[in-house]
Protein backbone atom coordinates (compact mmCIF):
# COMPACT_ATOMS: atom_id res chain seq x y z
CA UNK A 1 0.00 0.00 0.00
CA UNK A 2 1.30 3.39 -0.95
CA UNK A 3 0.47 6.02 1.62
CA UNK A 4 1.86 8.91 -0.39
CA UNK A 5 -0.29 11.88 0.62
CA UNK A 6 -2.69 9.52 2.26
CA UNK A 7 -3.86 8.13 -1.05
CA UNK A 8 -4.04 4.39 -1.15
CA UNK A 9 -2.96 3.18 -4.55
CA UNK A 10 -5.49 0.71 -5.91
CA UNK A 11 -4.99 -0.98 -9.26
CA UNK A 12 -7.41 -3.25 -11.10
CA UNK A 13 -9.84 -2.99 -8.25
CA UNK A 14 -12.86 -1.40 -9.78
CA UNK A 15 -15.26 -2.59 -7.14
CA UNK A 16 -18.49 -1.42 -8.68
CA UNK A 17 -19.71 -0.45 -5.23
CA UNK A 18 -22.72 1.83 -5.48
CA UNK A 19 -22.09 5.34 -4.25
CA UNK A 20 -24.84 7.42 -2.73
CA UNK A 21 -25.34 11.03 -1.71
CA UNK A 22 -26.14 11.33 1.99
CA UNK A 23 -25.83 15.08 2.39
CA UNK A 24 -26.10 18.24 0.32
CA UNK A 25 -25.18 21.82 1.17
CA UNK A 26 -25.50 24.60 -1.37
CA UNK A 27 -25.26 28.38 -1.41
CA UNK A 28 -26.44 30.31 -4.45
CA UNK A 29 -28.06 33.71 -4.84
CA UNK A 30 -31.46 32.05 -4.88
CA UNK A 31 -33.44 28.99 -5.86
CA UNK A 32 -33.50 27.61 -9.42
CA UNK A 33 -37.14 28.69 -9.92
CA UNK A 34 -36.75 32.32 -8.83
CA UNK A 35 -35.10 35.22 -10.64
CA UNK A 36 -32.16 36.43 -8.60
CA UNK A 37 -29.78 39.22 -9.43
CA UNK A 38 -29.06 42.72 -8.28
CA UNK A 39 -27.54 45.76 -9.93
CA UNK A 40 -23.86 46.05 -9.06
CA UNK A 41 -22.26 49.45 -9.54
CA UNK A 42 -18.97 48.00 -10.79
CA UNK A 43 -20.70 45.73 -13.27
CA UNK A 44 -22.99 48.54 -14.35
CA UNK A 45 -20.11 50.71 -15.54
CA UNK A 46 -19.18 47.85 -17.86
CA UNK A 47 -22.72 47.72 -19.24
CA UNK A 48 -23.52 44.36 -17.62
CA UNK A 49 -25.41 45.54 -14.53
CA UNK A 50 -26.94 42.39 -13.02
CA UNK A 51 -24.97 39.99 -10.86
CA UNK A 52 -26.23 37.17 -8.62
CA UNK A 53 -24.67 37.56 -5.19
CA UNK A 54 -25.10 35.12 -2.29
CA UNK A 55 -26.47 36.86 0.78
CA UNK A 56 -25.22 36.30 4.30
CA UNK A 57 -21.69 35.09 3.64
CA UNK A 58 -19.00 37.06 5.41
CA UNK A 59 -15.23 36.72 5.20
CA UNK A 60 -14.01 33.52 6.84
CA UNK A 61 -10.93 34.19 9.02
CA UNK A 62 -9.00 31.57 7.04
CA UNK A 63 -9.91 33.21 3.74
CA UNK A 64 -9.55 36.99 3.99
CA UNK A 65 -10.29 38.82 0.73
CA UNK A 66 -11.23 35.45 -0.73
CA UNK A 67 -14.96 35.13 -1.19
CA UNK A 68 -14.84 31.78 -2.91
CA UNK A 69 -12.93 30.36 0.04
CA UNK A 70 -15.50 31.81 2.42
CA UNK A 71 -18.34 30.31 0.38
CA UNK A 72 -16.65 26.92 0.46
CA UNK A 73 -16.17 27.16 4.19
CA UNK A 74 -19.85 28.04 4.67
CA UNK A 75 -21.18 24.98 2.83
CA UNK A 76 -18.54 22.79 4.42
CA UNK A 77 -19.81 23.83 7.83
CA UNK A 78 -23.41 23.14 6.85
CA UNK A 79 -22.61 19.62 5.75
CA UNK A 80 -21.28 18.78 9.19
CA UNK A 81 -18.89 16.07 10.28
CA UNK A 82 -18.23 12.87 8.32
CA UNK A 83 -19.25 9.50 9.78
CA UNK A 84 -17.15 8.57 12.80
CA UNK A 85 -14.05 6.63 11.83
CA UNK A 86 -14.50 7.14 8.09
CA UNK A 87 -11.43 7.76 5.94
CA UNK A 88 -12.41 11.03 4.38
CA UNK A 89 -11.40 12.80 1.19
CA UNK A 90 -12.09 16.30 -0.05
CA UNK A 91 -12.51 16.85 -3.79
CA UNK A 92 -13.11 20.44 -4.80
CA UNK A 93 -13.36 22.28 -8.08
CA UNK A 94 -12.10 25.82 -7.96
CA UNK A 95 -11.75 28.78 -10.26
CA UNK A 96 -9.44 31.57 -11.21
CA UNK A 97 -8.53 33.95 -8.41
CA UNK A 98 -8.07 37.09 -10.52
CA UNK A 99 -6.89 40.29 -8.89
CA UNK A 100 -9.23 41.88 -6.35
CA UNK A 101 -9.36 45.64 -5.75
CA UNK A 102 -7.77 45.08 -2.33
CA UNK A 103 -4.87 43.23 -3.89
CA UNK A 104 -4.40 45.87 -6.56
CA UNK A 105 -4.41 48.66 -3.99
CA UNK A 106 -2.13 46.93 -1.48
CA UNK A 107 0.20 45.05 -3.77
CA UNK A 108 0.47 47.12 -6.93
CA UNK A 109 -0.53 50.75 -6.58
CA UNK A 110 2.18 51.63 -4.03
CA UNK A 111 4.67 50.99 -6.83
CA UNK A 112 2.96 53.09 -9.47
CA UNK A 113 5.21 55.95 -10.67
CA UNK A 114 4.04 58.34 -13.36
CA UNK A 115 1.58 55.87 -14.81
CA UNK A 116 4.02 52.92 -14.87
CA UNK A 117 4.75 50.19 -12.35
CA UNK A 118 8.20 49.89 -10.84
CA UNK A 119 8.51 46.17 -11.50
CA UNK A 120 11.84 45.82 -9.69
CA UNK A 121 10.35 47.36 -6.56
CA UNK A 122 7.36 45.02 -6.75
CA UNK A 123 9.62 42.00 -7.00
CA UNK A 124 11.76 43.18 -4.08
CA UNK A 125 8.69 43.45 -1.84
CA UNK A 126 8.92 40.14 0.01
CA UNK A 127 6.57 41.07 2.85
CA UNK A 128 4.94 37.72 3.73
CA UNK A 129 1.73 39.42 4.84
CA UNK A 130 0.96 40.69 1.33
CA UNK A 131 -2.27 39.24 -0.08
CA UNK A 132 -0.99 38.10 -3.46
CA UNK A 133 0.42 34.62 -2.98
CA UNK A 134 -2.19 32.81 -0.95
CA UNK A 135 -5.17 33.59 -3.13
CA UNK A 136 -3.33 32.34 -6.19
CA UNK A 137 -2.63 28.88 -4.82
CA UNK A 138 -5.61 26.93 -6.19
CA UNK A 139 -5.42 24.03 -3.77
CA UNK A 140 -5.33 26.20 -0.65
CA UNK A 141 -9.04 26.01 0.13
CA UNK A 142 -8.98 22.23 -0.23
CA UNK A 143 -6.01 22.03 2.11
CA UNK A 144 -7.48 24.29 4.78
CA UNK A 145 -10.81 22.46 4.79
CA UNK A 146 -9.02 19.13 4.70
CA UNK A 147 -7.02 20.06 7.77
CA UNK A 148 -10.20 21.00 9.61
CA UNK A 149 -11.66 17.53 9.06
CA UNK A 150 -8.52 15.40 9.08
CA UNK A 151 -9.01 14.34 5.48
CA UNK A 152 -6.68 11.63 4.20
CA UNK A 153 -7.09 12.46 0.52
CA UNK A 154 -7.24 15.86 -1.15
CA UNK A 155 -7.89 16.77 -4.74
CA UNK A 156 -8.36 20.14 -6.43
CA UNK A 157 -9.77 20.24 -9.92
CA UNK A 158 -9.00 23.23 -12.09
CA UNK A 159 -11.06 22.57 -15.18
CA UNK A 160 -12.70 25.99 -15.56
CA UNK A 161 -16.52 25.68 -15.51
CA UNK A 162 -16.32 21.87 -15.55
CA UNK A 163 -14.19 21.80 -12.40
CA UNK A 164 -16.83 20.99 -9.78
CA UNK A 165 -18.45 18.30 -11.91
CA UNK A 166 -15.04 16.73 -12.49
CA UNK A 167 -14.43 16.77 -8.74
CA UNK A 168 -17.71 15.01 -7.99
CA UNK A 169 -16.94 12.33 -10.59
CA UNK A 170 -13.47 11.84 -9.15
CA UNK A 171 -14.79 11.67 -5.61
CA UNK A 172 -17.45 9.12 -6.47
CA UNK A 173 -14.84 6.90 -8.11
CA UNK A 174 -12.51 7.23 -5.13
CA UNK A 175 -15.33 6.17 -2.81
CA UNK A 176 -16.41 3.37 -5.13
CA UNK A 177 -12.96 1.85 -5.41
CA UNK A 178 -12.37 2.07 -1.66
CA UNK A 179 -9.68 4.73 -1.62
CA UNK A 180 -11.75 6.67 0.90
CA UNK A 181 -14.91 5.80 2.83
CA UNK A 182 -16.51 9.20 2.55
CA UNK A 183 -15.94 12.14 0.24
CA UNK A 184 -16.99 15.75 0.50
CA UNK A 185 -17.14 16.77 -3.12
CA UNK A 186 -18.17 19.89 -4.93
CA UNK A 187 -16.92 23.29 -5.89
CA UNK A 188 -16.74 26.95 -5.02
CA UNK A 189 -16.22 30.11 -6.98
CA UNK A 190 -16.78 33.84 -6.93
CA UNK A 191 -15.56 36.47 -9.32
CA UNK A 192 -17.92 39.17 -8.07
CA UNK A 193 -15.47 42.03 -8.06
CA UNK A 194 -14.50 44.59 -10.68
CA UNK A 195 -11.60 42.72 -12.25
CA UNK A 196 -13.60 39.52 -12.23
CA UNK A 197 -16.35 41.21 -14.21
CA UNK A 198 -13.81 42.76 -16.53
CA UNK A 199 -12.20 39.44 -17.44
CA UNK A 200 -15.54 38.11 -18.71
CA UNK A 201 -16.79 41.39 -20.13
CA UNK A 202 -13.80 41.72 -22.47
CA UNK A 203 -14.59 38.26 -23.82
CA UNK A 204 -18.16 39.42 -24.55
CA UNK A 205 -19.58 36.65 -22.35
CA UNK A 206 -21.71 38.72 -19.94
CA UNK A 207 -25.28 39.72 -20.64
CA UNK A 208 -26.23 43.40 -20.72
CA UNK A 209 -29.74 42.32 -19.65
CA UNK A 210 -29.81 39.06 -17.68
CA UNK A 211 -28.99 35.46 -18.44
CA UNK A 212 -31.76 33.85 -20.50
CA UNK A 213 -30.81 30.32 -21.49
CA UNK A 214 -32.36 29.08 -24.74
CA UNK A 215 -34.32 32.34 -25.13
CA UNK A 216 -34.48 33.72 -28.66
CA UNK A 217 -32.85 37.03 -27.69
CA UNK A 218 -30.28 35.66 -25.25
CA UNK A 219 -27.11 37.71 -25.04
CA UNK A 220 -24.72 36.08 -22.58
CA UNK A 221 -24.81 35.09 -18.95
CA UNK A 222 -25.37 36.82 -15.66
CA UNK A 223 -22.35 36.20 -13.46
CA UNK A 224 -23.12 34.42 -10.22
CA UNK A 225 -21.22 32.91 -7.35
CA UNK A 226 -21.72 29.95 -5.11
CA UNK A 227 -20.55 26.78 -3.52
CA UNK A 228 -21.95 23.32 -2.99
CA UNK A 229 -20.76 20.15 -1.45
CA UNK A 230 -22.12 16.61 -1.50
CA UNK A 231 -21.37 13.90 1.01
CA UNK A 232 -20.69 10.68 -0.89
CA UNK A 233 -20.49 7.23 0.68
CA UNK A 234 -20.76 3.63 -0.40
CA UNK A 235 -24.40 2.57 -0.29
CA UNK A 236 -23.79 -0.37 2.05
CA UNK A 237 -22.04 1.87 4.57
CA UNK A 238 -24.74 4.52 4.42
CA UNK A 239 -27.59 2.04 4.81
CA UNK A 240 -25.80 0.29 7.66
CA UNK A 241 -25.59 3.47 9.66
CA UNK A 242 -29.12 4.54 8.76
CA UNK A 243 -28.06 7.63 6.85
CA UNK A 244 -30.64 9.29 4.62
CA UNK A 245 -29.97 8.47 0.96
CA UNK A 246 -30.84 11.49 -1.14
CA UNK A 247 -29.56 10.21 -4.47
CA UNK A 248 -27.44 7.52 -6.08
CA UNK A 249 -24.45 8.39 -8.20
CA UNK A 250 -24.74 6.33 -11.38
CA UNK A 251 -21.93 7.51 -13.61
CA UNK A 252 -19.91 10.24 -15.24
CA UNK A 253 -18.26 10.97 -18.53
CA UNK A 254 -15.81 13.58 -19.68
CA UNK A 255 -14.37 14.72 -22.98
CA UNK A 256 -12.38 17.50 -24.58
CA UNK A 257 -13.54 19.51 -27.58
CA UNK A 258 -9.97 19.87 -28.90
CA UNK A 259 -11.41 22.69 -30.94
CA UNK A 260 -10.90 26.17 -29.48
CA UNK A 261 -9.93 27.61 -26.09
CA UNK A 262 -13.19 29.55 -25.70
CA UNK A 263 -15.73 28.57 -28.34
CA UNK A 264 -17.47 25.21 -28.09
CA UNK A 265 -17.50 22.84 -31.01
CA UNK A 266 -20.39 24.23 -33.12
CA UNK A 267 -22.16 20.88 -33.27
CA UNK A 268 -21.46 19.99 -29.65
CA UNK A 269 -19.16 17.11 -30.56
CA UNK A 270 -17.34 17.13 -27.23
CA UNK A 271 -20.54 17.63 -25.25
CA UNK A 272 -22.11 14.63 -26.97
CA UNK A 273 -19.07 12.50 -26.23
CA UNK A 274 -19.22 13.37 -22.53
CA UNK A 275 -22.92 12.48 -22.33
CA UNK A 276 -22.44 9.19 -24.20
CA UNK A 277 -19.59 8.26 -21.88
CA UNK A 278 -21.69 9.08 -18.83
CA UNK A 279 -24.50 6.84 -20.09
CA UNK A 280 -22.01 4.04 -20.76
CA UNK A 281 -20.43 4.48 -17.33
CA UNK A 282 -23.86 4.36 -15.70
CA UNK A 283 -24.98 1.36 -17.73
CA UNK A 284 -28.01 3.28 -18.95
CA UNK A 285 -29.65 4.08 -22.26
CA UNK A 286 -30.95 7.46 -23.34
CA UNK A 287 -34.49 6.37 -22.50
CA UNK A 288 -33.55 6.04 -18.84
CA UNK A 289 -32.81 9.75 -18.42
CA UNK A 290 -35.87 11.87 -17.71
CA UNK A 291 -34.28 15.28 -17.08
CA UNK A 292 -31.20 17.10 -18.28
CA UNK A 293 -29.68 19.96 -16.35
CA UNK A 294 -28.03 21.78 -19.23
CA UNK A 295 -24.88 23.82 -18.92
CA UNK A 296 -27.10 26.36 -20.74
CA UNK A 297 -25.19 29.57 -20.14
CA UNK A 298 -27.34 31.77 -22.35
CA UNK A 299 -24.73 32.47 -25.01
CA UNK A 300 -25.85 32.27 -28.63
CA UNK A 301 -23.35 29.67 -29.81
CA UNK A 302 -23.09 27.61 -26.63
CA UNK A 303 -26.81 26.95 -26.18
CA UNK A 304 -27.29 25.84 -29.77
CA UNK A 305 -24.27 23.54 -29.69
CA UNK A 306 -25.44 21.95 -26.45
CA UNK A 307 -28.99 21.53 -27.71
CA UNK A 308 -27.71 19.71 -30.79
CA UNK A 309 -25.65 17.41 -28.59
CA UNK A 310 -28.52 16.68 -26.20
CA UNK A 311 -30.91 15.95 -29.05
CA UNK A 312 -28.36 13.67 -30.73
CA UNK A 313 -27.56 11.65 -27.62
CA UNK A 314 -30.74 11.72 -25.56
CA UNK A 315 -33.51 12.70 -27.95
CA UNK A 316 -36.27 14.98 -26.73
CA UNK A 317 -35.82 14.72 -22.99
CA UNK A 318 -36.98 17.67 -20.83
CA UNK A 319 -34.04 20.02 -20.38
CA UNK A 320 -33.60 22.99 -18.08
CA UNK A 321 -30.95 25.48 -17.10
CA UNK A 322 -30.62 27.24 -13.74
CA UNK A 323 -28.34 30.01 -14.93
CA UNK A 324 -31.22 32.35 -15.72
CA UNK A 325 -32.17 32.11 -12.04
CA UNK A 326 -28.95 32.40 -10.00
CA UNK A 327 -26.44 33.11 -12.72
CA UNK A 328 -23.38 31.23 -13.84
CA UNK A 329 -21.39 30.15 -10.80
CA UNK A 330 -18.34 29.45 -12.99
CA UNK A 331 -16.15 26.70 -11.48
CA UNK A 332 -18.83 25.90 -8.90
CA UNK A 333 -21.59 25.51 -11.50
CA UNK A 334 -21.45 21.73 -11.77
CA UNK A 335 -21.78 21.30 -8.02
CA UNK A 336 -24.43 23.90 -7.23
CA UNK A 337 -26.61 22.74 -10.11
CA UNK A 338 -26.35 19.05 -9.26
CA UNK A 339 -27.06 19.92 -5.63
CA UNK A 340 -30.25 21.73 -6.61
CA UNK A 341 -31.27 18.81 -8.86
CA UNK A 342 -30.89 16.44 -5.89
CA UNK A 343 -32.82 18.78 -3.61
CA UNK A 344 -35.51 18.98 -6.30
CA UNK A 345 -35.72 15.19 -6.34
CA UNK A 346 -36.20 15.20 -2.58
CA UNK A 347 -38.75 18.01 -2.66
CA UNK A 348 -40.70 16.66 -5.62
CA UNK A 349 -39.76 19.33 -8.15
CA UNK A 350 -38.32 19.28 -11.65
CA UNK A 351 -36.94 22.73 -12.26
CA UNK A 352 -37.61 24.68 -15.44
CA UNK A 353 -35.66 27.45 -17.11
CA UNK A 354 -36.04 30.92 -15.64
CA UNK A 355 -35.55 33.60 -18.28
CA UNK A 356 -36.57 31.56 -21.30
CA UNK A 357 -39.64 33.50 -22.32
CA UNK A 358 -39.54 32.88 -26.06
CA UNK A 359 -37.76 29.72 -27.11
CA UNK A 360 -35.20 30.16 -29.84
CA UNK A 361 -36.37 28.01 -32.78
CA UNK A 362 -32.74 27.11 -33.46
CA UNK A 363 -32.63 25.19 -30.17
CA UNK A 364 -32.98 21.50 -30.97
CA UNK A 365 -33.71 19.97 -27.57
CA UNK A 366 -36.92 20.07 -25.51
CA UNK A 367 -36.62 22.98 -23.11
CA UNK A 368 -38.61 22.75 -19.93
CA UNK A 369 -39.64 26.35 -19.27
CA UNK A 370 -41.88 25.99 -16.21
CA UNK A 371 -41.03 23.84 -13.25
CA UNK A 372 -43.00 20.64 -12.69
CA UNK A 373 -44.38 19.53 -9.36
CA UNK A 374 -42.97 16.03 -9.72
CA UNK A 375 -39.40 14.89 -9.28
CA UNK A 376 -37.16 13.52 -11.98
CA UNK A 377 -35.96 9.96 -11.44
CA UNK A 378 -32.70 10.09 -13.37
CA UNK A 379 -30.88 13.36 -14.01
CA UNK A 380 -27.99 14.01 -16.34
CA UNK A 381 -26.15 17.24 -15.51
CA UNK A 382 -23.78 18.92 -17.96
CA UNK A 383 -20.84 21.22 -17.24
CA UNK A 384 -18.60 22.63 -19.95
CA UNK A 385 -15.51 24.76 -19.40
CA UNK A 386 -13.23 27.15 -21.23
CA UNK A 387 -10.54 25.08 -22.80
CA UNK A 388 -13.13 22.64 -24.10
CA UNK A 389 -13.39 20.37 -21.05
CA UNK A 390 -16.81 18.75 -20.74
CA UNK A 391 -18.26 16.64 -17.95
CA UNK A 392 -21.63 14.94 -17.58
CA UNK A 393 -22.86 13.43 -14.31
CA UNK A 394 -25.80 11.07 -13.83
CA UNK A 395 -27.65 10.59 -10.56
CA UNK A 396 -30.84 8.78 -9.64
CA UNK A 397 -33.42 9.70 -7.05
CA UNK A 398 -33.04 8.02 -3.65
Amino acid at each position, binding site marked *: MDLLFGRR*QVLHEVTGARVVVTGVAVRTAGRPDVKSGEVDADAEVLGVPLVARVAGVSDDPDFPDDRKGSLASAVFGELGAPPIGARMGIFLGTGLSSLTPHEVEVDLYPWLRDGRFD*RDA*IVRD*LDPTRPAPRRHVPERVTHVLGARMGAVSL*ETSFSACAAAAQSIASAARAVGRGEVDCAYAGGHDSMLHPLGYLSFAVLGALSPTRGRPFHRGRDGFMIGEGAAMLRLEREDDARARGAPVLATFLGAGSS*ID*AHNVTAPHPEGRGAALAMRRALRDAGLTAADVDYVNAHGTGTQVGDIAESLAIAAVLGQVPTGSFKGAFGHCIAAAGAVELAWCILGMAEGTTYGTVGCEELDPAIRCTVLVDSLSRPPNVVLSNSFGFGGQNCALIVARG
Partner: protein
Amino acid sequence: MIVAVGAVLPTALRVHAPLAALPSALAGVVVGPDLVPWLKRRKDARLLPRAAELALPAAGQALFGFDGDLEELGLFVAVGREPPDEGDAEASIAAMAKDGRLDRARFGDQGRALYPPLLPLRTLPNMVLAHVAIQSGIRGENVCLAGGFEAGVGVWDAANDALASGRCVAALVGAAFSAVDRASARDRHRLGQTEPPGEGAIFVLLVGPAVRPEADLRVWRQRVGALGPVEALLGAVGVTPR
Protein backbone atom coordinates in the same frame (compact mmCIF):
# COMPACT_ATOMS: atom_id res chain seq x y z
CA MET B 1 2.31 -0.05 -18.68
CA ILE B 2 4.34 3.00 -19.66
CA VAL B 3 5.13 2.89 -23.38
CA ALA B 4 6.54 6.38 -24.01
CA VAL B 5 7.93 9.35 -22.13
CA GLY B 6 8.39 12.96 -23.17
CA ALA B 7 10.10 15.56 -21.04
CA VAL B 8 11.15 19.18 -21.26
CA LEU B 9 13.28 19.95 -18.24
CA PRO B 10 16.15 22.22 -17.24
CA THR B 11 19.55 20.60 -16.95
CA ALA B 12 21.01 22.70 -14.14
CA LEU B 13 20.46 25.69 -11.91
CA ARG B 14 21.63 28.91 -13.51
CA VAL B 15 21.50 32.62 -12.79
CA HIS B 16 18.23 33.83 -14.31
CA ALA B 17 18.50 37.52 -15.12
CA PRO B 18 14.82 38.44 -14.55
CA LEU B 19 15.21 37.38 -10.90
CA ALA B 20 18.17 39.69 -10.23
CA ALA B 21 16.16 41.83 -7.82
CA LEU B 22 15.40 38.82 -5.59
CA PRO B 23 17.70 37.48 -2.86
CA SER B 24 18.76 34.71 -5.24
CA ALA B 25 18.62 34.74 -9.02
CA LEU B 26 19.21 30.99 -9.32
CA ALA B 27 16.52 29.05 -11.17
CA GLY B 28 16.07 25.91 -13.21
CA VAL B 29 15.06 27.37 -16.55
CA VAL B 30 14.38 25.57 -19.83
CA VAL B 31 16.03 27.17 -22.84
CA GLY B 32 13.43 27.46 -25.57
CA PRO B 33 11.69 25.19 -26.38
CA ASP B 34 11.18 25.19 -30.14
CA LEU B 35 7.42 25.01 -30.55
CA VAL B 36 7.18 24.94 -34.33
CA PRO B 37 7.09 21.14 -34.68
CA TRP B 38 4.27 20.91 -32.15
CA LEU B 39 1.88 23.59 -33.39
CA LYS B 40 -0.76 23.25 -36.09
CA ARG B 41 -0.40 26.96 -36.84
CA ARG B 42 2.46 29.20 -35.83
CA LYS B 43 0.06 31.92 -34.67
CA ASP B 44 -1.28 29.60 -31.97
CA ALA B 45 1.91 30.32 -30.03
CA ARG B 46 0.66 33.73 -28.96
CA LEU B 47 -2.02 32.14 -26.78
CA LEU B 48 0.28 29.83 -24.87
CA PRO B 49 1.10 30.39 -21.21
CA ARG B 50 4.64 29.29 -20.31
CA ALA B 51 3.53 25.98 -18.84
CA ALA B 52 1.76 25.15 -22.10
CA GLU B 53 4.91 26.01 -24.06
CA LEU B 54 6.68 23.36 -22.02
CA ALA B 55 3.81 20.88 -22.16
CA LEU B 56 3.40 20.78 -25.93
CA PRO B 57 6.79 19.30 -26.80
CA ALA B 58 6.71 16.95 -23.80
CA ALA B 59 3.26 15.67 -24.71
CA GLY B 60 4.20 15.53 -28.38
CA GLN B 61 7.25 13.37 -27.64
CA ALA B 62 5.23 10.97 -25.50
CA LEU B 63 2.55 10.74 -28.17
CA PHE B 64 4.94 10.36 -31.09
CA GLY B 65 4.05 7.24 -33.07
CA PHE B 66 0.78 6.66 -31.22
CA ASP B 67 -1.61 5.28 -33.82
CA GLY B 68 -4.61 4.61 -31.59
CA ASP B 69 -7.91 6.47 -31.55
CA LEU B 70 -7.32 10.00 -30.23
CA GLU B 71 -11.03 10.28 -29.44
CA GLU B 72 -10.60 7.50 -26.89
CA LEU B 73 -7.22 8.64 -25.57
CA GLY B 74 -7.42 10.04 -22.03
CA LEU B 75 -5.59 13.19 -21.01
CA PHE B 76 -4.73 13.71 -17.34
CA VAL B 77 -2.76 16.82 -16.49
CA ALA B 78 -1.37 18.27 -13.27
CA VAL B 79 -0.70 21.99 -13.12
CA GLY B 80 0.76 24.40 -10.63
CA ARG B 81 -0.47 27.71 -9.31
CA GLU B 82 -2.20 30.22 -11.53
CA PRO B 83 0.26 31.78 -13.95
CA PRO B 84 0.71 35.45 -13.06
CA ASP B 85 -0.01 38.34 -15.31
CA GLU B 86 3.45 39.22 -16.54
CA GLY B 87 2.63 42.82 -17.23
CA ASP B 88 -0.01 42.32 -19.92
CA ALA B 89 -2.63 44.16 -17.87
CA GLU B 90 -0.23 46.76 -16.50
CA ALA B 91 -1.45 49.62 -18.66
CA SER B 92 -5.08 48.84 -17.82
CA ILE B 93 -4.52 48.57 -14.07
CA ALA B 94 -2.40 51.71 -14.03
CA ALA B 95 -5.13 53.58 -15.89
CA MET B 96 -7.68 52.67 -13.22
CA ALA B 97 -5.67 54.28 -10.41
CA LYS B 98 -6.58 57.51 -8.69
CA ASP B 99 -4.82 58.55 -5.48
CA GLY B 100 -3.71 54.98 -4.83
CA ARG B 101 -7.21 53.55 -5.13
CA LEU B 102 -8.99 51.69 -7.91
CA ASP B 103 -11.27 54.36 -9.35
CA ARG B 104 -14.62 52.99 -10.54
CA ALA B 105 -15.12 55.56 -13.28
CA ARG B 106 -11.66 54.97 -14.74
CA PHE B 107 -12.18 51.23 -14.38
CA GLY B 108 -15.14 51.28 -16.76
CA ASP B 109 -13.50 53.67 -19.18
CA GLN B 110 -9.71 53.59 -19.71
CA GLY B 111 -9.31 50.43 -17.66
CA ARG B 112 -11.68 48.47 -19.82
CA ALA B 113 -10.34 49.89 -23.06
CA LEU B 114 -6.78 48.83 -22.21
CA TYR B 115 -7.54 45.43 -20.68
CA PRO B 116 -6.10 42.61 -22.84
CA PRO B 117 -9.02 40.39 -23.89
CA LEU B 118 -6.93 37.24 -24.08
CA LEU B 119 -5.43 37.60 -20.61
CA PRO B 120 -7.92 35.28 -18.85
CA LEU B 121 -7.10 32.60 -21.38
CA ARG B 122 -3.43 32.80 -20.49
CA THR B 123 -3.96 32.67 -16.74
CA LEU B 124 -6.40 29.74 -16.55
CA PRO B 125 -4.29 26.76 -15.47
CA ASN B 126 -6.33 24.26 -17.48
CA MET B 127 -5.16 25.94 -20.67
CA VAL B 128 -2.20 23.55 -20.52
CA LEU B 129 -4.60 20.66 -21.04
CA ALA B 130 -6.61 22.62 -23.60
CA HIS B 131 -3.62 23.43 -25.78
CA VAL B 132 -2.26 19.88 -25.67
CA ALA B 133 -5.71 18.62 -26.70
CA ILE B 134 -6.19 21.19 -29.45
CA GLN B 135 -2.76 20.62 -30.96
CA SER B 136 -2.94 16.83 -30.78
CA GLY B 137 -6.66 16.15 -31.25
CA ILE B 138 -7.18 14.28 -27.97
CA ARG B 139 -10.87 14.07 -26.99
CA GLY B 140 -10.95 11.40 -24.30
CA GLU B 141 -11.64 11.26 -20.58
CA ASN B 142 -9.70 13.92 -18.74
CA VAL B 143 -8.92 15.76 -15.54
CA CYS B 144 -6.86 18.83 -14.77
CA LEU B 145 -5.67 18.96 -11.17
CA ALA B 146 -3.83 21.67 -9.28
CA GLY B 147 -1.61 21.33 -6.27
CA GLY B 148 2.02 20.28 -6.45
CA PHE B 149 2.77 16.68 -5.54
CA GLU B 150 -0.80 15.74 -4.81
CA ALA B 151 -1.85 16.83 -8.31
CA GLY B 152 0.79 14.64 -9.92
CA VAL B 153 -0.32 11.71 -7.83
CA GLY B 154 -3.96 12.52 -8.51
CA VAL B 155 -3.65 12.50 -12.29
CA TRP B 156 -1.72 9.26 -12.14
CA ASP B 157 -4.49 7.63 -10.10
CA ALA B 158 -7.24 9.11 -12.30
CA ALA B 159 -5.58 7.71 -15.41
CA ASN B 160 -5.16 4.29 -13.84
CA ASP B 161 -8.79 4.25 -12.79
CA ALA B 162 -9.93 5.24 -16.28
CA LEU B 163 -7.78 2.54 -17.87
CA ALA B 164 -8.79 -0.14 -15.41
CA SER B 165 -12.48 0.55 -15.90
CA GLY B 166 -12.21 0.78 -19.68
CA ARG B 167 -13.11 4.45 -19.93
CA CYS B 168 -10.12 5.08 -22.17
CA VAL B 169 -7.93 2.87 -24.35
CA ALA B 170 -4.71 4.65 -23.41
CA ALA B 171 -3.84 7.67 -21.32
CA LEU B 172 -1.48 10.56 -21.75
CA VAL B 173 -0.56 11.58 -18.21
CA GLY B 174 1.57 14.56 -17.39
CA ALA B 175 2.40 17.70 -15.54
CA ALA B 176 3.61 21.11 -16.56
CA PHE B 177 4.72 23.93 -14.34
CA SER B 178 6.68 27.14 -14.44
CA ALA B 179 7.62 29.38 -11.52
CA VAL B 180 10.64 31.17 -12.96
CA ASP B 181 8.84 34.41 -13.80
CA ARG B 182 9.39 37.30 -11.42
CA ALA B 183 5.95 37.35 -9.81
CA SER B 184 5.94 33.61 -9.09
CA ALA B 185 9.48 33.69 -7.74
CA ARG B 186 8.60 36.62 -5.49
CA ASP B 187 5.47 34.91 -4.25
CA ARG B 188 7.45 31.78 -3.41
CA HIS B 189 9.67 33.93 -1.18
CA ARG B 190 6.62 35.48 0.44
CA LEU B 191 5.34 31.99 1.19
CA GLY B 192 8.67 31.01 2.71
CA GLN B 193 9.63 28.72 -0.18
CA THR B 194 13.23 29.74 -0.65
CA GLU B 195 14.58 26.88 -2.76
CA PRO B 196 15.30 27.98 -6.33
CA PRO B 197 12.25 27.98 -8.60
CA GLY B 198 12.11 25.75 -11.62
CA GLU B 199 9.98 24.82 -14.59
CA GLY B 200 9.35 21.82 -16.75
CA ALA B 201 6.90 19.36 -18.22
CA ILE B 202 6.78 15.62 -18.40
CA PHE B 203 4.26 13.29 -20.00
CA VAL B 204 3.96 9.53 -20.16
CA LEU B 205 1.77 7.37 -22.34
CA LEU B 206 0.06 4.52 -20.50
CA VAL B 207 -1.67 1.63 -22.22
CA GLY B 208 -2.72 -0.12 -19.05
CA PRO B 209 -2.70 0.51 -15.32
CA ALA B 210 0.76 0.99 -13.86
CA VAL B 211 2.07 1.37 -10.36
CA ARG B 212 3.58 4.73 -9.47
CA PRO B 213 7.30 4.11 -9.09
CA GLU B 214 9.05 6.06 -6.40
CA ALA B 215 12.27 8.00 -6.70
CA ASP B 216 14.36 10.13 -4.42
CA LEU B 217 14.05 13.61 -5.83
CA ARG B 218 16.15 15.53 -3.34
CA VAL B 219 19.24 15.64 -5.51
CA TRP B 220 17.18 16.59 -8.53
CA ARG B 221 15.70 19.53 -6.67
CA GLN B 222 19.16 20.76 -5.72
CA ARG B 223 20.24 20.65 -9.35
CA VAL B 224 17.30 22.10 -11.24
CA GLY B 225 15.13 23.81 -8.68
CA ALA B 226 11.63 23.16 -7.41
CA LEU B 227 9.40 21.85 -10.17
CA GLY B 228 6.09 21.56 -8.37
CA PRO B 229 3.90 18.83 -9.81
CA VAL B 230 6.53 17.87 -12.33
CA GLU B 231 8.46 16.31 -9.49
CA ALA B 232 5.63 13.92 -8.78
CA LEU B 233 5.71 12.61 -12.31
CA LEU B 234 9.47 12.53 -12.43
CA GLY B 235 9.21 10.00 -9.68
CA ALA B 236 6.29 8.33 -11.36
CA VAL B 237 8.23 7.58 -14.52
CA GLY B 238 11.28 6.44 -12.62
CA VAL B 239 13.57 9.37 -13.36
CA THR B 240 16.12 8.77 -10.64
CA PRO B 241 18.33 11.79 -10.06
CA ARG B 242 22.02 11.07 -9.92
